């Protein structure tokens, strides 16, 4: 009898629960109470007139509201990862790596890429309920970017074409126009970056810290209160949207930070005015709160294995997969493996701008670089160090990029000692010393010192390479250095060869600036001095003086002058071809896996995603606002209760 009564009561409760779920279907339960109290307008009034329909992937399903997602981070500064993961941008990359409007309703590109008309969503609001309008763009452009005190370095370089400023117009509250004299293909990609270029700021809030809008005495009081040195520093500290470290700063992201550093735990709560909805028109995000617990980076794998997180990718390393896998069942999570989308996980960089004249001549001989590449047994590297899971080949694009070409990845990368020896003989290094190593033109033995700022992994890889190089008569020495010292040696032309990670972006599309494959940065280890020359506008370094180097620079300039995608594609293909043929860097393996720990019942996370900074923004590409907990209990839990344990 009692049992029956309990069942009836339970059924009644369930019915009641279902009923309320329907009534407040479009309102997240966390906000429903505030709406009921009249502290918050209903969801229809909070969404823009035309909300953004989130682009659900094929395996992603409609979710339900609620729950707290815990992640681990190693430093208070890591709050900026939230801006990366949540990935709300004016325009963003979708899963096909195309640029699509997100915060913007649409973008018109006119006059062959010289004019951009940005259309905002009417009725879009900041997280504090204030309207988000063209005036926020005007504030940033006129009062921040062009203010010498706030931006001592001037307007961001992405907005300069031939050193000229754009003309920026604000015809009405929902339209912003950027117009240049020549095409600016960098503009839209910069807005979609994992660390984006912000061309707007919440003017209504930032006025408080701006000398133009606030009385000097109030400003002085605020400077004192915030412990800043001057108003410019205060303004910049308060307005760092990317860092998500100021709870008072209105945002457009799905979650907003609620506490200030220094702290050991950061809580992000849903933004009631977020502009994305699912296919049923329900406002995103699904998950109420995201928590970043700060701990030591070395403990993160252990804590993940002890089931203390709901979702973790950052700070987990591939060699920790066995640990993570072993306690999956006990602690209720699963370990996914996502490919890291670098052009190469590791690559050797012959320094074409080394000071030593003999080395310089030798390293600039393409036959030498090809021979070294042919004398690397990538299959062995992959088997021995990466469990055979990596992709062998050169440092170039990966499958998934529209610019991918298998032939380029394989060129000069097949292990072929006979051909390597033939090429080295052809160069004229036929003399050998008593150990069997070849002699260089000036009689020195062919001993290549490979400098590394990495750890044991680099050392392991190099010692395997050293075995096969020895069979080609090349001696390899490993020299570990700190990154600071290594870079200074490379910049100064003292390093002969170094090892480092390959292209950061192995998934580039033709719309990306090809700056990683042209000599435009001194941090490119194969031609640091050429990069220095470009960066300092000729003040230091050396101008590219080989035909290939000059060709790369011409192609780079051609990309900037290009008006359409086809031209940009051609430029990219030509540059990648040149790289593959010239072996400017000797790629080893790519596509190493990033372990991702996912709590059981956390849905909408793809089984095999890619883990990439840009494009990708780590979880951002898959829309963290669409992740949800399938378990109702998990969703109902407001915060994990302190059990004192």
């Amino acid at each position, binding site marked *: 009898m009692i049992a029956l009564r309990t069942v009836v009561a339970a059924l009644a409760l369930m019915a009641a629960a279902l009923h309320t779920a329907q009534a407040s279907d479009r309102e997240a339960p966390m906000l429903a109470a505030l709406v009921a109290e009249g502290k918050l307008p209903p969801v229809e009034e909070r969404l823009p007139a035309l909300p953004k329909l989130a682009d659900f992937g094929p395996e992603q399903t409609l979710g339900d509201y609620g729950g707290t997602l815990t992640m681990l981070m190693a*430093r208070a500064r890591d709050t900026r990862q939230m801006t990366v993961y949540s990935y709300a941008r004016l325009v963003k990359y979708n899963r096909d790596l195309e640029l699509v409007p997100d915060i913007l309703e649409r973008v018109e590109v006119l006059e062959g890429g010289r004019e951009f008309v940005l259309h905002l969503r009417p009725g879009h609001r900041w997280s504090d309920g204030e309207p988000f309008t063209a005036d926020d763009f005007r504030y940033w452009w006129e009062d921040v970017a062009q203010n010498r005190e706030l931006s001592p370095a001037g307007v961001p370089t992405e907005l300069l074409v031939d050193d000229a400023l754009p003309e920026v117009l604000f015809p009405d509250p929902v339209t912003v126009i950027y117009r240049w004299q020549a095409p600016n293909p960098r503009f839209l990609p910069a807005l979609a970056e994992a660390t984006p270029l912000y061309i707007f700021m919440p003017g209504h809030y930032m006025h408080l810290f701006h000398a133009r809008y606030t009385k000097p005495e109030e400003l002085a009081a605020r400077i004192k209160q915030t412990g800043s040195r001057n108003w410019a520093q205060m303004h910049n500290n308060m307005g760092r949207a990317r860092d998500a470290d100021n709870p008072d700063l209105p945002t457009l992201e799905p979650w907003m930070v609620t506490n200030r550093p*220094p702290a*050991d735990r950061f809580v992000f709560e849903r933004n009631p005015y977020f502009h994305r909805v699912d296919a049923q028109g329900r406002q995103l995000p699904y998950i109420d709160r995201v928590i970043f617990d700060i701990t030591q980076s070395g*403990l993160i794998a252990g*804590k993940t294995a*002890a089931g203390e997180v709901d979702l973790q990718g950052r700070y987990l390393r591939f060699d920790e997969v066995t640990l993570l896998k072993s306690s999956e069942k006990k602690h209720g999570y699963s370990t996914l493996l996502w490919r890291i989308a670098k052009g190469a996980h590791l690559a050797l960089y012959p320094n074409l701008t080394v000071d030593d004249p003999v080395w310089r001549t030798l390293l600039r001989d393409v036959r030498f670089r090809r021979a070294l590449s042919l004398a690397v047994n990538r299959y062995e590297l992959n088997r021995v160090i990466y469990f055979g899971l990596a992709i062998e080949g050169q440092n170039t694009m990966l499958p998934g990029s529209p610019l991918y070409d298998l032939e380029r990845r394989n060129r000069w990368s097949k292990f072929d000692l006979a051909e390597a020896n033939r090429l080295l003989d052809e160069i004229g290094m036929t003399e050998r010393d008593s150990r069997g190593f070849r002699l260089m033109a000036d009689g020195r033995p062919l001993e290549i010192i490979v400098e590394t700022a990495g750890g044991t992994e680099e050392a392991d890889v190099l010692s395997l390479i050293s075995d096969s190089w020895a069979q080609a008569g090349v001696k390899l020495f490993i020299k570990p250095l700190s990154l600071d010292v290594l870079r200074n040696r490379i910049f100064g032309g003292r390093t002969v060869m170094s090892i480092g990670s390959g292209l950061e972006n192995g998934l580039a599309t033709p719309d990306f600036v090809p700056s990683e494959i042209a000599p435009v940065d001194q941090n490119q280890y194969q031609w640091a001095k050429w990069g220095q020359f470009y960066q300092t506008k000729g003040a230091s370094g050396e101008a590219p003086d080989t035909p290939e180097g000059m060709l790369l620079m011409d192609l780079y300039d051609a990309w900037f002058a290009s008006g359409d995608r086809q031209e940009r594609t051609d430029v990219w293909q030509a540059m990648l071809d040149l790289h593959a043929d010239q072996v400017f860097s000797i790629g080893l393996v790519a596509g190493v896996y990033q372990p991702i720990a996912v709590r059981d019942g956390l849905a909408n996370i793809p089984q095999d995603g890619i883990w990439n900074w840009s494009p990708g923004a780590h979880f951002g590409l898959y829309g963290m606002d669409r992740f949800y907990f399938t378990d109702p209990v998990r969703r109902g839990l407001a915060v*994990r209760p302190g059990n004192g344990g």
Partner: protein
Amino acid sequence: MFGYVVQRLFVMIPTLLVISALVFIIINLPPGDFATAMLQELESQGGSGAQKATEIRALYGLDRPLIEQYFHWLGGMMVGDFGFSFEHEAPVTAVVGERMGLTLLINFISILFIYLVSFPIGVYSAVRQYSAGDYAFSFLGLVGYATPNFMLAIIMLYVLNEAFGISIGGLMDPAFRDQPMSWDKFVSIMQHSVVPVVVIGTAGTAAMIRRLRANLLDELHKQYVVTAKAKGLPPGRALRKYPLRMALNPFIADIGNLLPDVVSSSVIVSVVLGLETVGPTLLRALETQDTYLAGSFLMFLALLTVIGMLISDLALAALDPRIRLGGKAVK
């Protein structure tokens, strides 16, 4: 006595000045500065910021000569301004905040643990020399002394997590982070401080047991003890009245040695265990060359050590009349 204390306090000033200069120089010895460390981070995330580095240097005065930076810092410390942490973009005092309190708490409990455990064991081992108990404790002590404490920390973490489900690392359950102090939070801190205290204290305890045992054994074989026993003094009184008091001298004087040991090993242990003490922040500050934060931490710790030495000297003087009066007798 008063003069003695005043004199000791005055000696502390030049000591601390020398320490501050050393600290500052050593932090600035590695190539590069905070701006370069920051630049590397920006680049590793795909950004670029050569111009940013110049801005940062100008903003924080890193482009000034080192000597000027030093005196700026020193001058600030005199009036309680410990400078600005570049990494946290906040005044150093705000960053240190609760962490300093927890550090002091952990170190205090560790020292208490060392004394409470080592005293009875040391006395027992000396009085019952070569007994089974003596061997057992000596064995345990030697193992404790020889095990690197970070190793011990990792083992204990694993065992406690597997056996008792205590969350790995940290000084409290994550739910209590940045919450105001409450009874529940205090209980949580106490539960979580078991591992760090045992880990930090083990080596010190082992050393202390050895020292007390050796000192007490020296005394126990002296003639006055034999005489006292022969005249029928009860064993307890024969132990407590003189030999134990004599043997206590090094026990107290060791605070001076113990403090720097405990403080420095607690930094390493905190990093391994992810404690919310100054340890991890200090290490990070040293890595990024966050000069003022690292410098101020080290100065706090130096001050602590110097004060600890003073306390140990004062306690010794209070305990042993020979030390109080000794100075005059020599004159």
